């Protein structure tokens, strides 16, 4: 992750030093490398930059027969319509609250788990714990949604049976808007917290054993060593992951939301991205939907830059 930064700084220096010395010679000598990069170059050009050209329909009234360039300009009409619509604040609130909820629960848990796994002696048990907790990562989002629906179904779901077995009344998880966000966040934790530990465990395995030995000789308890050695080790990784997460606050994982959405929980489950899908591809309001999508990605990009700036001011671990 950090090599994003490295790529930008380290090699620029190297290149400028050699720049004067026969750039052309090196280009000709390595002409095959341009063939190597060609498929990826054209892929990104066409399928990532191509749609950026199409963004202009957010400022137009897209008429399929006239094409992207031929459609008439309307300025910021679609944006104004969106900002003044009755659902604007709901969408914004749902998007942001689901993301923040997910961040608050889903971000610390892999760190806690990694710190705990790290204290378990290497052996069969540790291996089994890791294998099992990583496994849900490979379950597809459709199966995941199917599992959630099946487990939480009123009268037949196992979770409902367990809650009723304990003598409580189980809520209607699937249709009660108040439960949607928790259902989304906690199923996500179940699925990805284990996998999320890998990156932290990798960082922990890089801790100098001498540090721990010295701390033990000084009489530090396990808890103190975790507190003063292991946690500081994880801070750079945590920072980078936090920046990336903040950057996608408005890009909440919409594939799962789309699958779990139903007319009854819509008031708390409709987020900007599902709205873009519905208005754009289901209702074919191409221009309007593009405008909403553009609004979303601009916020994302701005957030990422701002958070990165703030982190760079306060610590050394920024993305670039």
């Amino acid at each position, binding site marked *: *992750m950090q090599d994003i930064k490295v790529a930008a700084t380290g090699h620029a220096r190297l290149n400028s030093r050699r720049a004067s010395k026969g750039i052309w010679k090196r280009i000709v000598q390595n002409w095959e490398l341009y063939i*190597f*990069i060609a498929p990826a170059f054209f892929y990104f050009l066409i399928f990532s930059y191509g749609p950026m050209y199409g963004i202009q329909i957010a400022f137009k009234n897209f008429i399929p027969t006239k094409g992207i360039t031929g459609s008439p300009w309307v300025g910021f009409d679609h944006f104004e319509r969106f900002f003044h619509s009755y659902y604007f604040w709901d969408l914004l609130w749902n998007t942001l609250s689901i993301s923040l909820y997910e961040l608050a629960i889903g971000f610390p848990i892999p760190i806690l788990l990694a710190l705990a796994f790290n204290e378990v002696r290497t052996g069969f048990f540790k291996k089994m714990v890791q294998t099992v907790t990583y496994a849900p990562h490979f379950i597809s989002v*459709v199966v995941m949604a199917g599992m959630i629906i099946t487990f939480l179904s009123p009268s037949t779901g196992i979770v409902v049976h367990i809650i009723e077995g304990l003598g409580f009344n189980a809520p209607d998880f699937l249709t009660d808007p108040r439960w949607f966000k928790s259902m989304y966040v906690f199923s996500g934790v179940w699925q990805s917290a284990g996998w999320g530990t890998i990156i932290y465990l990798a960082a922990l395995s890089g801790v100098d054993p001498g540090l721990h030995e010295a701390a033990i000789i000084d009489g530090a308890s396990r808890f103190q060593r975790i507190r003063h050695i292991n946690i500081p080790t994880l801070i750079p990784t945590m920072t980078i992951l936090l920046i990336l997460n903040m950057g996608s606050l408005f890009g909440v994982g919409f594939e799962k939301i789309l699958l779990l959405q139903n007319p009854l929980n819509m008031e708390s489950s409709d987020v900007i991205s599902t709205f873009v899908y519905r208005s754009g591809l289901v209702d074919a309001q191409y221009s309007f939907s593009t405008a909403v999508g553009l609004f979303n990605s601009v916020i994302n990009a701005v957030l990422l830059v701002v958070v990165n700036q703030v982190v760079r001011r306060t610590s050394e671990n920024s993305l670039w």
Partner: protein
Amino acid sequence: MLSGVKETKRDKLFLVCNYIFVSLALLIVLYPLVYMISASISDPKYVGSGEMWLWPKGITFDGYKRVFENSSIWTGYRNTIVYTVVGTAINLVVTLPAAYALSRKDFVGRNFFTAMFMFTMFFGGGLVPTYLLIKQLGMINTIWAIVIPSAASIWNIIVSRTFFQSSIPRELQEAAQIDGCTNMRLFIKIILPLSMPIIAVMALFYGVGNWNSYFSALIYLNDTAKYPLQLVLRQILVLQQMSAQGGGAIDASTAAAMNSKAEIAELVKYAVIIVATVPVIVIYPFLQRYFVQGVMIGSVKG
């Protein structure tokens, strides 16, 4: 490493708590997995009533029989295999050579390409413009709409580049070049054979992604005969269940039809989950090392 040191009482207590915590995490993750396997071979009657809660009860393989009799699941399975194999092959052909080129310090334009690829991580055209582009290219309702728009992920290119940079000695490449080896030969004869770990990691990352994806099929395919398994699953697991939940005002005959469908869904849903997930879950423990390696390479400082 710390064998000479005795654990203090406090540390022992801490360790016990830690083991309890880890075991709890293990149970929470394991239980739904075991439950689904048990439910898939249990009588739906016991599953629905909650009598089956851990081990199979009233063992029956009807669910699996129904799944294997269902032609749309078979077609879905076949389509998914085709999409996964073709898609992953394309992913590798796009990713590996590009990553190798970017790993070469003497590659003029490397900063430009890196920046150009990286920018797409932060900003994109969005759903509708992408859809219109795919439509304009005539890819709607073809396999190409599934495999081409996801031909490469910048993340995986960076991971592979890091591998090439850190795991293959520069001297080896320089020596080969001095001996007059072309870049093409160098890549195919020397670099690729030395890069089996990263090829495995990439094939697995992309392969699992392709196997599990449903969204591009949902928006780009309209012919049900071309649906991948995940879309068939969506119909069985999500749509029918949801319509059984929040039906609202529907007439009697629709309700009856839905009920019989819901019963079949009840019978097959666990079996179908197992059948769809088995290929990934079965190979996963054997390849776990590679997956973990992939995540770690990605996190290493370049």
